């Protein structure tokens, strides 16, 4: 008896694997056929295999609770999410284009601000951006790259269109889970990998290393690269340790580093101080240097910005790169791409209404019940209004806030995210998902992960894919052939 009931599978949106008639899409045919043949016992065995693999490999994420810090096993669904290679190549080109333009934009903002002078980007947006760092003005990081590592969230609407939902240019996380998901999935579904149509993902640590090495100010010597973590209490500590281990570099904390009077960065080792060339920092801007930013920070290194400004060390991502990932700047990305590259955006933005523009604000205020309203500089879903789920009182409150500070708000239509078949407590169900690919910029070339991290909302109907709030993840397969 087959345990996965595909016949009863229904999606309320576009489905990644199943077509409307209930048959699998061409790129998912092999997978669905394989899973259909498994008995209930076999499916349970696969789930157990995955759980054990996750436990043994020690894939965890950290949650805070009253009882202290808990390392929880990573929630993983064995049914992968599949994207045809041809479609992925278009997305890849779009992501490259986007990040190239964003780096030019950030570099421009910290130098001549041509885009402001040319009237394409409003000066008042810049002056009110909380992520613009005046300390970075005039600094020229190697090769003009500020956002070396970018995690952009892609979503698909119910008509099948792929959109960029947001760009994370500060310290995007999740790539280690992408790599570990593949390891788990190879153990669970080895038969499907034998055909060789699923493209590999494990090149990322080597690509990351090469990109970081290319940023080294001392090109003649073998560069000393480190990963800088806020420490064991950070929720992404697993990933920091994982990437350091995979690249074979030191995992340092702020207290391991010191800036000398020669404005060079050294790490304290058993052989004495050893010069550091490149820091892949996973500490927020405001905490990396108490001399330049938050004076109370104990996570940072005094003088780090001084050393960076002097060109003695590369910081990845560069401080100040976050200026380009606020929600209002997001709305300008298509214009930014056109301005710097003279091209149209290959991947569309979700249509956005800027409350600072009179006509658009009027539309937003008249349609609050249909829109999602987001503040410019909050992340993680804080301070948002989800129109269709809001109360009259909430909408009144938001209308007042928007009128008081229109520049701080933008709005988007409520998307119906695509779904994918997921094994849930009560059997197979359609669950909403997104995708976070990672883009590495080394100046002369750009690398995009093959797929990325697929996050899935395990709760029926939920759009929240966050692992701390009932989200899970899936392996992401980019497959050759089997085009729609």
């Amino acid at each position: 008896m087959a345990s996965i009931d595909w016949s009863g599978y229904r999606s309320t949106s576009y489905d990644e694997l199943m077509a409307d008639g209930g048959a699998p899409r061409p790129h998912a045919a092999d997978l669905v056929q394989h899973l259909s043949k498994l008995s209930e016992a076999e499916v349970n065995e696969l789930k157990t295999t995955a759980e054990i693999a996750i436990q043994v490999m020690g894939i965890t994420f950290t949650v805070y609770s009253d009882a202290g810090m808990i390392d929880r096993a990573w929630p993983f669904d064995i049914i992968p999410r599949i994207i045809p290679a041809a479609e992925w190549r278009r997305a890849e080109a779009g992501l490259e284009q986007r990040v190239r333009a964003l780096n030019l934009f950030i570099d421009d903002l910290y130098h001549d601000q041509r885009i402001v002078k040319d009237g394409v980007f409003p000066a008042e947006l810049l002056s009110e951006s909380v992520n613009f760092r005046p300390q970075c003005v005039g600094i020229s990081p190697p090769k003009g790259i500020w956002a070396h590592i970018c995690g952009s969230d892609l979503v698909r609407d119910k008509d099948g269109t792929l959109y960029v939902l947001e760009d994370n240019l500060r310290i995007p996380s999740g790539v280690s889970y992408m790599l570990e998901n593949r390891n788990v999935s190879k153990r669970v579904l080895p038969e499907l990998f034998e055909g060789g149509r699923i493209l590999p993902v494990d090149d990322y640590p080597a690509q990351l290393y090469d990109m970081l090495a290319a940023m080294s100010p001392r090109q003649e010597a073998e560069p000393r690269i480190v990963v800088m973590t806020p420490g064991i209490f950070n929720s992404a500590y697993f990933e920091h340790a994982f990437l350091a281990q995979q690249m074979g570099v030191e995992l340092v904390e702020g207290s391991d580093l010191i800036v000398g009077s020669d404005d060079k960065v050294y790490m304290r080792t058993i052989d004495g101080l050893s010069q550091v060339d490149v820091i892949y920092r996973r500490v927020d801007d405001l905490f990396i240097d108490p001399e330049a930013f938050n004076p109370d920070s104990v996570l940072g290194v005094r003088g780090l910005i001084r050393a960076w400004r002097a060109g003695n060390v590369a910081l990845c991502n560069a401080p100040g790169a976050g200026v380009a990932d606020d929600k209002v700047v997001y709305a300008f990305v298509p214009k930014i791409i056109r301005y710097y590259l003279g091209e149209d955006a290959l991947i569309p933005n979700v249509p956005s209404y800027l409350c600072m523009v009179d006509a658009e604000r009027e539309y937003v205020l008249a349609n609050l019940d249909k829109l999602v309203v987001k503040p410019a500089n909050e992340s993680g879903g804080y301070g948002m209004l989800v129109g269709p789920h809001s109360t009259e009182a909430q909408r009144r409150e938001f209308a007042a806030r928007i009128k008081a500070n229109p520049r701080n708000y933008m709005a988007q239509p409520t998307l119906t995210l695509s779904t994918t078949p997921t094994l849930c407590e009560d059997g197979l169900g359609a669950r909403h998902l997104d995708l976070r690919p990672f883009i590495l910029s080394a100046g002369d070339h750009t690398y995009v992960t093959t797929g990325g991290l697929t996050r899935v909302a395990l709760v029926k109907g939920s759009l929240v894919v966050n692992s701390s709030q009932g989200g899970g993840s899936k392996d992401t397969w980019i497959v050759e052939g089997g085009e729609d």
Partner: protein
Amino acid sequence: MLSRVAENLYWMARYLERAEDTARLLRVTRHLMLDYPGTPTLGWASLITITGDDELFSSHYDRRDEASVLAFLCLDRAYGGSILSALGAARENLRTTREVMPREIWEEINQLYLTVGNYLASGIAQRRLDDFLRMVIRGCQTINGLIEGTLSHGPARRFCNIGRELERADMTTRILDVRSANLLPRSPEDRTPFENLQWMSVLKSLSAHQMYRQRVRARVRGADVVRFVLQDTDFPRAIYRCLDDLCRVFQSLGRHDNAMNCTLGQRDALLAADVGRLAASPDELNAFIDGLQVGFGAIHQSIAATWFAGVDAPAPVLSD
């Protein structure tokens, strides 16, 4: 290797050794007490003296009886040297340096700590005490075995070894100190009853009885035991051997001059000791051991200053 990582591994190894040696000490004391229930001077109270934490104990417990001493030394979280606390500290030190150690070592320490912690709720029943202590000793030995068998001969292993040898030397002096205070005759005519068996307990605390018999081939006598524990060149828990092993590890590390000189100084002082005289006078032995412990503190300081502080480097004049 980062100084911080080296320091964490050093302390991990020290705490692990402390947990094991504490379990050894308890195990032998228990056997001795079963044989000689009426020997008050040798009682459980002397174990508290060994730890050097009399005050802390007195502030938490009213009586120095078996139950209190065991609770204090095995499972008391308030006492940093209890088996549970020491394993917890070893685990925390490894937790932040997991990326340099083979995964199995983390799993083993984690498991051992959790298992010992499970006894907190129920306490340790008297008839299960020996099983508990053996489990701790075995767990620590397993971890040391994993380090020996799976960790490359690089800096990580060296700092584990340094921590282990120094803690071992220190614990050996503590065992010798307290036991001998009760055992050595104040005058040659003044024989303690069961002296032979009690000296044997010193050896057994160190798992040294068999090795001692192979080396000395005579009945167990105070002077011979003191000599063996202080000066034996081959027994791994003899203080001379611990210091000698430390020197060997230092030799493989850069910038070892201070730590090496400091340790060689202690080792030579140990060799020069007049064991016959020490064995004849508890006060002199006690003073000598105090001197050794101060010396171990100096060795620790030289290790920390050389490899953990990281500022006396070949490099730049520092701004701070």
